[in-house]
């Protein structure tokens, strides 16, 4: 029987190893799997390469993971957010590496990684510093830069509802990077707001089919990062 459910966030993140590449869903706080990130802080895995559009805010979630010095490198498009001080401090000290990727290129690289495309060409960043040292090639009179697919050892993703097969649906703009990160990771770990029976989610509306999901844990009332930040909360 296929049953990808686990009982706790600790079980969900079990096995994330030192040096792993971890994709973390979310655009700002929307879709941020904050309970899974906190479980990863508890686990203590170090030297992580983290892929996320941003770099967290305040002293909870992704910012707390960075602050706890578990991240050696961030791959992201916008490492500047309101209330973000953790990353800048480490970055200026030279204690964390940054690979800056345009947001659409980041999304497409993740999608390519998940779809078995090792590399593709895009017009984004041509003629800018972010295309320096990259191969540029002309197709039909326009220049494009070669970008490589991006895969991960683990993905941490937040969704709204899931069944035991791992079929997922999301909530509004919390969908963002979740579906493509689920495709691009060897082990995709999902926190869901609710579990439903197999068959309860209409086959026509499933956003992430279960084939892309490995572990599911229910977090019925996830915290909101912005509220934690406003309350001055920290983790651990």
């Amino acid at each position, binding site marked *: 029987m296929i049953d990808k459910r686990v009982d706790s966030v600790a079980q969900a993140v079990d096995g994330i190893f030192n040096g792993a590449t971890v994709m973390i869903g979310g655009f700002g706080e929307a879709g941020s799997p904050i309970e899974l990130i906190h479980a990863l802080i508890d686990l203590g895995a170090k030297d992580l390469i983290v892929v996320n559009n941003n770099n967290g805010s305040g002293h909870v979630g992704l910012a707390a993971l960075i602050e706890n010095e578990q991240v050696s490198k961030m791959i992201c498009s916008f490492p500047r957010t309101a209330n973000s001080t953790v990353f800048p401090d480490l970055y200026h000290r030279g204690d964390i590496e*940054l690979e800056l990727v*345009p*947001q659409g290129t980041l999304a497409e690289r*993740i999608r390519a990684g998940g779809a078995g495309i090792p590399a593709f060409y895009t*017009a*984004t*960043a041509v003629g*800018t510093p972010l295309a320096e040292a990259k191969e540029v090639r002309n197709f039909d009179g326009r220049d494009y830069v070669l970008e490589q697919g991006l895969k991960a050892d683990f993905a941490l993703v937040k969704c709204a509802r899931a069944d035991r097969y791992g079929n997922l649906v999301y*909530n509004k*703009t919390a969908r963002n990077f979740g579906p493509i990160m689920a495709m691009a990771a060897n082990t995709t770990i999902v926190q869901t707001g609710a579990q439903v029976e197999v068959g309860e989610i209409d086959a026509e509306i499933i956003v992430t089919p279960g084939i892309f999901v490995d572990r599911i844990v229910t977090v019925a009332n996830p915290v909101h990062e912005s509220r934690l930040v406003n309350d001055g909360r920290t983790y651990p």
Partner: protein
Amino acid sequence: MSAIALAASIGWDREQMASRAALDIPDGAYVNLGIGIPEKVAQYVPEGREVIYHTENGLLGMSATLEAGQEDPELINAGKKQVSAIPGAAYFHHADSFAMIRGGHIDICVLGAMQVSQTGDLANWSTGSVDAIPAVGGAMDLVAGVKTIYIITQHCTRTGEPKLVGSCSFPLTGKAVVSRIFTDLAVIDVTPQGFKLVELAPGVELDYVRQRTGCELIADDWQ
């Protein structure tokens, strides 16, 4: 009273700049609005037009109108502000969202600028300062993928430096991407010949704009 001090009190204000840009967005357009003054464009859609707003974090049919009690921290725009969705809106994931951008499906994108060159180069993501943490977001994807790029910006920086220049000194966001610029002083097109004046803000003189532009400004109809 210096010319620079005057600048704050003449020409269009931020709302007027947004409203002037909105006039150039046709009925039925699919539009992406950058953070800052561009966001205000949505408030000035002329009567009788229907415009669909795209936000690159996964929503087509964004509305800035937010009814009390309807807020959801998971329904936000690219600036991470809470927004709402119109009837007929659609959610999608990030790769699909940027496929809309990169594939040329978005008609118009309105962005802010640090510098625009007379060849349409845009710099709006980095001063190139070694101290600053570079952050690019979706700006490079937008300028590379959207058919028409409009810029809304103050004509000069706070210290009086021109933002419309012969060539950008800041790192580029994209080369030859800007079509039209809406400033507090004028509407200016990027043409193969360079910057070309389209319209002056009420009460603003051509010479006043020229003095504040970092390179030639073609204005044949005004001479």
